[in-house]
């Protein structure tokens, strides 16, 4: 089982994420803008879906390295979308990072029960996001000199 990531991070140089393709599923324009800003300056490519159903549609057309999945979305929430991903051969091992503003034990359990790899509690910080992506993709994060 993975951990719930809160705000604390150790100082590191942000990874470059060359060739990394990330899908963000989040209905909240503000969250979309913040995550986009966090990834500015890296080489990652970011696609955005406004709910779980749209995320599954994009996933069926594109090879992603990682999905950032909001939990509470209209139409199809992140739990249902992740469960569907895990049932597909391509989605079985894809890293899925939950983005949620709720970290009660029940919320945490629900996320891990559907197969999410780790959780970030909103509002997330830039280095926290970059380090979590690097960790999930097994990319090195270099300590700040």
């Amino acid at each position, binding site marked *: 089982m993975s951990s719930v990531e809160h705000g604390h991070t150790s100082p590191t140089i942000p990874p470059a994420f060359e060739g990394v393709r990330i899908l963000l599923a989040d209905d909240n324009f503000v969250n979309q803008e913040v995550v986009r800003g966090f990834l500015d300056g890296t080489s990652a490519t970011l696609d955005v879906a406004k709910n779980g159903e749209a995320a599954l549609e994009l996933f069926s057309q594109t090879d992603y390295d990682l999905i950032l999945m909001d939990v*509470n979305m209209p139409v199809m929430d992140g739990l249902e979308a992740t469960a569907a991903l895990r049932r597909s051969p391509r989605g079985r091992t894809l890293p899925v990072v939950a983005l949620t503003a709720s970290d009660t034990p029940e919320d945490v359990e629900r996320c891990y029960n559907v197969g999410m790899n780790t959780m970030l509690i909103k509002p997330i910080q830039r280095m926290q996001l970059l380090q979590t992506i690097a960790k999930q993709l097994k990319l090195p994060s270099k300590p700040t000199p």
Partner: protein
Amino acid sequence: MNTDSQEAAKNAAMPDVTPTFSLATILQFTAGSMESAERIIGLIVDEIPPLLSNLELGHEGADRETLERAAHTLKTHASYVGAEAFREQAERTELLCRTDNTEELPAQVARLATLGHATLNALNSIDWEQLSRDGHPQHE
């Protein structure tokens, strides 16, 4: 807002409700960029009114899902701008929805709406030109 809600709003009168926010907080999310902060606060200012409408509609129509979703999103928005009283109230309201606490909800929804309007007014009053000239956040 119906009569019950108006009464609840009076009861939730707010000597302790201050429409504060923190530009320093939003700047944490924009790597110090005032331009990005202005863009994100602009999005938040655009989104708060429909969310407050949903809050009211959800409450009046006893639509707990709409109410909970509006409170949830307002909580996130409040976090980004460091509006702590607003965030706490949104969290409280979301929790009351989840636990189906109909007794406390009217007063708490009214208080959340009041805080939302106050925060919206405060965010709308930011003088971005002056901040750009001064180079420092003026609200804390």
